[in-house]
């Protein structure tokens, strides 16, 4: 490994970093919104919604992310839904992680003291109002550290999008390594780039955990 190699490889890999960030953020937002939908269906008290949510979460948790990505990118076009690789990557990772987000959110909602529900009800709050003003804000504090960990996992698993031709960091790394045979230099650089992105998130999780312990 020498400096001139690094200076040549780094700009190419940084192009991949851009897509890694895009896919990670896209999947994070999508999984958060969808995770909220699953969990609200789950705790809504409606039997049908609860069943749909439980099954969706089980299917998403019980199948490999890789297969889900392949399915969305290669199988959906057969029924007329054609997505770009980046779109498929964001939707696939978002779907897969929505299941974990939902389970995390559920544990947070269940950890809120039942007295809070009664207080909200006795004030005449409707279910949506109670969720929005009383339960979710308190659950959010409880789930934040785990949410941070999910961010880190999405960041790392965004590398799976390389398998459906998203030219993100891992994809660029593979191409570069196999075309130059400089496996050690390229893969070390790739690993460090992921690490540089994860470390701030890891310290964020640590901070959130300390804050949670204090309250």
């Amino acid at each position: 490994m020498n400096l001139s190699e690094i200076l040549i490889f780094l700009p190419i890999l940084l192009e991949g970093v851009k897509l890694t960030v895009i896919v990670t953020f896209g999947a994070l937002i999508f999984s958060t919104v969808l995770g909220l939908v699953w969990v609200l269906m789950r705790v809504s008290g409606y039997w049908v919604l609860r069943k749909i949510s439980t099954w969706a979460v089980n299917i998403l948790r019980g199948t490999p992310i890789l297969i889900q990505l392949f399915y969305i990118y290669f199988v959906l076009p057969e029924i007329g839904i054609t997505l770009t690789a980046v779109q498929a990557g964001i939707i696939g990772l978002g779907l897969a992680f929505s299941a974990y987000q939902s389970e995390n959110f559920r544990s947070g909602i269940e950890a809120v003291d039942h007295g809070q529900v009664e207080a909200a009800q006795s004030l005449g709050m409707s279910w949506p109002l109670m969720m929005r003003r009383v339960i979710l804000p308190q659950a959010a504090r409880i789930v934040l550290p785990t949410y941070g960990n999910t961010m880190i996992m999405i960041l790392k698993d965004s590398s799976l999008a390389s398998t459906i031709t998203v030219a993100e960091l891992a994809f660029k790394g593979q191409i570069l390594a196999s075309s130059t045979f400089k496996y050690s230099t390229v893969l070390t650089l790739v690993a460090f780039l992921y690490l540089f992105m994860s470390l701030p998130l890891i310290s964020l999780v640590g901070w959130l955990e300390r804050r949670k312990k204090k309250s």
Partner: protein
Amino acid sequence: MTSKFNISLKNVHKHFGKNHVLKGVSASISKGEVVCVIGPSGSGKSTILRCINGLESYESGSILAGGIEVDSSRPSIIEVRTLISMVFQRFNLFPHRTVLENVIEGPIFVKKQSIEMAEYFGRELLKRVGLSNKERAYPPQLSGGQMQRVAIARALAMNPEAILFDEPTSALDPELVGEVLSVMRYLAEEGMTMLVATHEMDFARSVADRVIFLDEGQIVEEGSAMKILTAPEHPRTQHFLHRILTRS
């Protein structure tokens, strides 16, 4: 509609699983009355209050509050709850909101009051319960007695026809009981309709218009505070009071 507000229970039955907790309870509370429900733990005192507010369902009988049938599965339950506020044993304040925010939450989001008006009345209420200086504090920073007084202000902020107190001093350290009872006494003097499940016999004696003695899900005896607490007729009431009064 509310010119003569009242709450009436007719032959209310309630089970928790196989446990028959209310066995045909009938009672009524008229506007301006202070009624204390006394009785051993597990006698169903709290359950009665919770049924009136629709926090528990009941299987048979009927409960009317201000002319509305109390049914926790119907949308009208929201109307019942805006007519009748509740104060809980464990306060149940919203820990993520300040004292003032706790008080104005219901007026703003349920009664759709303007923020300015809700804050104005909220501060007035905090003054009445002696907590003006705490409006920006968060509940975990307060003592139990202070939290319960905030909870009472929160209940009052809904401008209710009646307030249900579910053993409001049972979770408090003994030295903090007085400050909560004196706020309640003040409310009673102002003519607030109150139904209080309590173990505080002195409070019942000096404040209640009527006392209901409940045992094993049945009303054993009811009457004026004087009569029930000093000359109860039923042996179960006598036995209960004897046990309570010789405890300390």
